[in-house]
């Protein structure tokens, strides 16, 4: 299992998972929690933005966003664009996930997503998420 905090700070990384599929959301949440992430899940990009707005007002932080690519109304790409256009949210690292290696993933990476993962996530993917966390934390500390 991955270390339970970032850089030994004792803080559990908080990840927002965005996925319209209930079964997949449930499995991803469980996997991340077992790897000592604090997890919040929502089923749409709209709800993710709404929640982030609420958290910003409450000075509550999220350390990473893990979003599905293929979602109705607002895709993972659309959500990513909205996040990168926002001064409040553009600094939050975003990872895109999809059940297939779609061509849209390239444009997500070009738009600023830091990684792409194939669903269902595996333990090795969660290890990668921790690597991203630690890297992002290093950048913030510099």
């Amino acid at each position, binding site marked *: 299992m991955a270390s339970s905090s970032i850089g030994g700070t004792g803080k559990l990384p908080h990840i927002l998972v965005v996925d319209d*599929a209930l079964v997949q959301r449930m499995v991803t949440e469980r996997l991340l929690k077992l790897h000592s992430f604090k997890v919040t899940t929502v089923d749409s990009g709209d709800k993710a933005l709404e929640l982030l707005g609420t958290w910003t007002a409450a000075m509550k932080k999220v350390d990473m966003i893990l979003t599905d690519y293929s979602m109705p109304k607002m895709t993972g790409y659309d959500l990513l664009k909205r996040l990168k256009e926002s001064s409040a949210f553009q600094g939050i690292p975003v990872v895109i996930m999809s059940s297939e290696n779609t061509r849209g993933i390239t444009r997500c990476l070009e738009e600023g997503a830091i990684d792409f993962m194939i669903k269902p996530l595996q333990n090795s993917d969660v290890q990668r998420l921790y690597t991203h966390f630690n890297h992002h934390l290093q950048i913030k500390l510099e």
Partner: protein
Amino acid sequence: MEYSRRQLNNIKANLFEQGYLDDQFHQIEELQDDASPNFLQEVVTLFFRDTTRLIDTTEQALKKSPQDFRRLDSIMHQFKGSSSSIGALRVKNECSIFRDHCNQGNIEGCLKSFQKVKKELAILRQKLEAYFKLLNQSESVAVKKADR
């Protein structure tokens, strides 16, 4: 009849050997712990509830004329993703075939493929319900023995 752990493992192993399940099923099993001992069963129950909804949605979409293959593909993408999440390999593969037919604009292919999706789902449901029933009975007996 009381089923031993070994017999239950054999039943489960057969599901893998016959291609009904893939390793993702094991992965979900490993997500269980003392705090969530029935996580696998909860996820599987949710999967069948979700796919019942997706079947209804697909049936409605197939009735439309002219066909909206993009919509059908989108529904089947969800279906495939959901199947993939629990390791429902045969169902997932039939979903892929359905999507191939969508890409070709082949409604006859879609209709035939959809029948196969439903059939594989029904078979898997029957097998997993039987497996979990035996598992629960076995665990119930084990608990009673431990209490004595």
